[in-house]
């Protein structure tokens, strides 16, 4: 690698009044990025190294975590500290783009790892050892072909990713529009009437193991916090959770910690902070009710019922919650909306699977090219 990369240090004295761009190397082969633009006076060091386009820059500290890359055109003239040595790539031997791709492979990271040394938290790349390593280098024509192929694949994957995101937001917009339609002239009923707070106290058996659930914020649903032996509970009061319960975490409801208990949560327990509301199944579908609380309107109602000022005091009041009024269209309409939702969910989930497959594509291509 020493034949390919020449150390190039362009040391400059910083002018306190001038603005400099700083470079950061992102981990795991994601390349270089702009860290920020700051005045010379804000940089602690008096001198820094200037980098220019197509140089290879490596972070001594995080090289073993894949922090390196080729300087893109927009970072030309940016400054880095001494912990980021810059190298010129020999134009007769390799294309900078090719080096950039090589640097994204797992074995390149392995090379950097083995060229690093130092004690815990001070492990740094040793330049001489790094430059003594060797990498396979085809002719520049072949390199160009490889770069073209990989660039095209990466561009296609990125474009597909954007399309996928757009599709998801369109589906979500469809849901919102459909929901707005069916609640347009639906009567409003209070939670206390249609989905009252139901608490089912658990008599704790010291010998039994309980599955305790919690609710994640930002509508990320219920999760199993832990399995606890009855004897390990000291002050907590526990309540049973049933499938179809709408569960609010009274502490974090303001941060959208609301979830719907699925069949897998039946028979689990929640502590007194988990407010479980059970919908009257003859008039209200739990899924529909849950969707209402994920809408802006529904969330505003929850915020209104959480009157505290400070974050940790913003608890959802058990007195105000039953007073929240929710739209109740005909049960048929609700069920129709539920089936819409489940299709939309399936579409999103399947698309996520496709994305997961495609995430493997670039590593597989790199593996094919560089073995």
């Amino acid at each position, binding site marked *: 690698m020493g034949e390919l990369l020449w150390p190039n240090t362009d040391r400059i004295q910083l002018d306190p009044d001038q603005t400099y761009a700083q470079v950061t190397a992102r981990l795991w082969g994601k390349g270089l990025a702009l860290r920020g633009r700051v005045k010379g006076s804000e940089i602690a060091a008096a001198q820094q190294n200037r980098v220019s386009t197509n140089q290879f820059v490596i972070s001594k500290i995080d090289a073993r975590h894949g922090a390196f890359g080729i300087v893109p055109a927009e970072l030309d003239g940016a400054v880095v500290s001494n912990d980021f040595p810059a190298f010129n790539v020999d134009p007769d031997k390799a294309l900078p783009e090719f080096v950039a791709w090589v640097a994204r492979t797992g074995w390149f990271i392995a090379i950097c790892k083995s060229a690093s*040394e*130092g*004690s*815990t*938290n*001070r*492990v740094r790349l040793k330049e001489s050892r790094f430059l003594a390593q060797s990498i396979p280098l085809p002719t520049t024509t072949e390199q160009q072909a490889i770069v073209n192929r990989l660039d095209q694949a990466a561009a296609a994957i990125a474009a597909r990713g954007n399309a996928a995101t757009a*599709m998801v937001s369109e*589906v979500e917009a*469809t849901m919102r529009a*459909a929901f707005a*339609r*069916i609640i347009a002239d639906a009567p409003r009923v209070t939670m206390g009437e249609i989905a*009252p*707070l*139901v608490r089912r*106290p658990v008599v704790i058996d010291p010998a039994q193991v309980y599955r305790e659930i919690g609710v994640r914020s930002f509508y990320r649903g219920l999760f199993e916090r*832990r399995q606890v032996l009855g004897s390990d509970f*000291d*002050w907590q009061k526990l309540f049973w959770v049933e499938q179809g319960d709408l569960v609010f975490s009274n502490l974090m409801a303001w941060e959208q910690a609301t979830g719907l208990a699925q069949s897998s949560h039946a028979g689990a327990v929640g502590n007194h902070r988990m407010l479980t509301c059970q919908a009257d199944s003859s008039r209200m579908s739990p899924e529909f009710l849950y969707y209402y609380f994920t809408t802006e309107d529904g969330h505003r109602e929850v915020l209104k019922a959480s009157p505290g000022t400070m974050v940790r005091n913003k608890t959802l009041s058990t007195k105000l919650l039953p007073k929240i009024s929710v739209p109740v269209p005909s049960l*048929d*309409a609700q069920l*129709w*909306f539920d*089936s*819409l939702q489940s*299709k*939309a969910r*399936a*579409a999103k989930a*399947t*698309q996520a*699977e*496709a994305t997961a*497959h*495609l995430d*493997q*594509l670039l*590593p*597989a*291509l790199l593996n*094919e090219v560089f073995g």
Partner: protein
Amino acid sequence: MARAPKTTAPQTTAQRLDSIVKSARKIMRKDKGLNGDLDRLPVLTWIMFLKFLDDLERMHQDEAELAGSAFASAIEPPYRWRDWAADKDGITGPDLLTFITAEKTTLPDGSEGPGLFAYLRALRGTNGGRDRRDVIATVFRGVTNRMESGYLLRDVINLINAIHFDSSEEMHTLGRLYETLLREMRDAAGDSGEFYTPRAVVRFMVERINPTIGETVLDPACGTGGFLTEAFTHMALQADTVERRNQLQSGSLAGIEAKSLPFLLAQMNLLLHGLEAPEIDPGNALRFRLTEIGERERVNVILTNPPFGGEEEAGILSNFPDDRRTAETTQLFLQLIMRRLKRKGQGRAAVVVPHGTLFGTGVAARIKADLLEKFNLHTIVRLPEGVFAPYTDIAANLLFFDTTGPTGPIAYWEQPAPNGRRKYSKTAPLQSADLADLSAWWDTRGEDPRAWLVDGPSLIERDAGGQVVAVNLDIKNPNAKAAEDHRTPAEIVEAAFTKESEVLALLDELRELVSQQAFA
């Protein structure tokens, strides 16, 4: 729905203690001399220590009276808890502060004498022997009173006075309570390479090493005494005769801790667990010349988690051979541990080391070569990231070795990351149950995707002159490769394509649904 009538269950001991400690901290929060838990805990500790000692002495006194033998109290009146603290309307305010901190003062009984701390620091064992008095003296040499208000201090003392250390049930729960206190304090620590070892890891190491009565156990970087208390509890189960109990109490456990607060906490922690005169050395474990450590200082069992990446002054480094000096404290401790183990199969050790130790070259390689050539490094357990959260995310390893001879095959075990999460964290730490599979595998050493064998001697790489160049113990699990995606790019695109067409089909159904006349 009608609310069920509220029932107030009687508080358990644990709950009562918990509430006492909580109110004590609430009181201390008002004192201007204390900043944060790191200041409050020592205050709580020394007050609890004195109360505990007094209860213990009273118990011993009663026993001695029943047996008809004489009893000499470690602390004389009027310095005993019952003399100055037990009466809740006793001395308070500035008087209390002077009594505690002054060198010379008027004592509660009217006579002149040294203040409480001055008295306690001057205590010595009788006839030159080491006993409880020396422990008290060493503990109080490290204690200063930081509270500015004597009235608040009196309130705290009155609260602690309500804890009764003489009932065995409270003793037991207090041990647990104390650990939770320690844990809270640790959240404020974690600097300077002190990473307190999670309980599950400590317990696992003690159980696997299995120290027995008659053996000596050492932790050269004992911190708050986690390994020692766990080892003591483990060994106490074997103490079925008076003789064995005495053997356990005298000199089976020793620790070294250079920092004063952990030192004090370790003393207290061990006392609470039932070890009456803990032998904790309040100095730097590395202060002795390595070559001067002889058979007399050797022990059977070493259990420890040395500081990672700390630094030592130059004078300390000169205690080590020229080619074995390094800034990494873990490496220095490893050498100390190897030196202090009893030879000829009599010694065994379990040590926590960071990943860097396994792949380190240079000095680290030479130390590892020593380990492989002179010791039997039989097992390495690789722990995932976050086990030491919140202090550090460094992934660590447990090394198990003994002095039965040079290393043959090394058994590796890779503890996987927790189910469904990327790593362990402060709020979801490693639990003992997570290590159950490892414990089951330990004795049988059967086939397991998480375990593999490596030939030890072949790991030592030498240059032409016979010098050790590298010893790479950082070996990846060969079974883990199966989990990698080995599909060709074409197969991957195909799979993605199938999924995308399913998405299209679903969108089609969605279109069908939204166009239903009834609702649209």
